[in-house]
């Protein structure tokens, strides 16, 4: 028997070839949106394992990082859906009235905006993340959330309102007072 190292029986599948380049992208996508390392790791694992199943059942025309990010987006939405069920008991329904006044002067403070986003209820967070962070058009947001376009538009209106309210709470009633002293 030779002492030469045996070939590592690594499955010759495209996903492993893509893994090293795709992993930081998928993880970076998820981390920027859920902002928790442990959760981003869990969702990253779920994404790649789901990709194996998808490659077997329903392979895409081309295996790309963009395709994996699409799966990651599904996993993120699934996560928020699970959180929504947990939150439902005590969630305060905010934003039934639509506030039109933006609590920021000209531009959003990006850091504060991310923090505010993280404090919203899961459905609002999911809708705003897909619409604005991911830059998806409303029909695609609707598809991811499993809602009609009309219901998604209404959800986005409420989510924006909740976002404004929370943002205003954190900047105080007079936005100009805080805005200058950063």
């Amino acid at each position, binding site marked *: *028997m030779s002492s030469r*190292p045996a*070939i590592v029986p690594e499955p010759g599948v495209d996903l492993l070839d893509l893994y090293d380049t795709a992993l930081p992208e998928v993880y970076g996508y998820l981390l920027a949106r859920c902002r928790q390392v442990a959760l981003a790791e869990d969702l990253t694992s779920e994404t790649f394992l789901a990709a194996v199943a998808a490659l077997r059942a329903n392979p895409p025309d081309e295996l790309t990082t963009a395709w994996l990010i699409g799966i990651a987006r599904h996993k993120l939405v699934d996560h928020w859906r699970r959180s929504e069920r947990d939150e439902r008991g005590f969630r305060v329904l905010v934003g039934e009235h639509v506030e039109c006044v933006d609590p920021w002067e000209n531009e959003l403070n*990006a850091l504060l905006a991310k923090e505010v986003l993280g404090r919203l209820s899961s459905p609002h967070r999911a809708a705003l993340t897909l619409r604005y962070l991911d830059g998806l058009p409303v029909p695609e947001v609707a598809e991811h959330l499993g809602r009609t376009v009309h219901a998604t538009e209404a959800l986005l209106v409420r989510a924006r309102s909740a976002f404004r309210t929370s943002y205003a709470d954190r900047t105080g009633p007079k936005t100009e007072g805080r805005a200058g002293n950063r």
Partner: protein
Amino acid sequence: MKDPLEALYEPVLPVDPEPTFAAALRAQLVQTLLRGRGETMSNETTAAPPVEGDIGYASIWVPEVTRAESFYGAVLGWQFAPGSIDEGRQVTGLPNQHIGLWGGQERGGTLVSFAVEDALETVRRVRGAGGSADEPNQEPYGLAAMCADDQGMPFSIFQSPAAERGPAPAAGNGEIVYLTFEVADTAKFRDFFTIVFDWRFSQGHAGGDRFNIHGVRPLSGLAGGHRETTIVPQYVVDDIDAAVERVRVAGGSANEPQQQPYGRSTECADNQGTRFYLAQL
């Protein structure tokens, strides 16, 4: 008016996760891929039909078939039915795979038989790529032909009705989970099989003259720099320590199992010197 929330747009910026996490996830993926579909090993999983270039049959070549019968029966639990010749045996009772023993061979090895959609067309491609091929013969299982690649590696082809590539069935206990094609010249091998089966190759993760083969089942790899071409099978077992013990008791030899990312594996030789690997996933 521009929606001010559009300022939230966040392009995907790569972030490296913890290296330990990255390595653990890679290992989990490899294991998932090797396991095939998962836990189901019952008889209700019908083997997915092979498609062009898949290995539909593997014949283990050995000097004496009766000695091989007792070895593989003891080590892998194989059972046998008579083959088409005195020196041939069919392994029975495997959940997904068709494997046989072929005695009377000076040198041990594996002869693989590839499923093809059109045997005549494949024969033309084999010859066009610099290999040799007999005229196809009608066999009970379909139109078949013996061939050899341009480095002299024998293989056979058989015509099988066109099938969609479905999910890979899990390799059951005692079945082949991986094949290593050891060849002299990997560039020639890649050229030949790209022409014949449209296989694709990617550099193995470990580097060197090693490649993953894309487009063939079971999962297979290519290793260069060998004097003679040999196809070495890796069999999956549920308890590798016990299997190694059985190898030694049955007159074979085995190295100590090593931890690999996908499970534990070791290199062995049977009681007549034919090499193989064992893996516990």
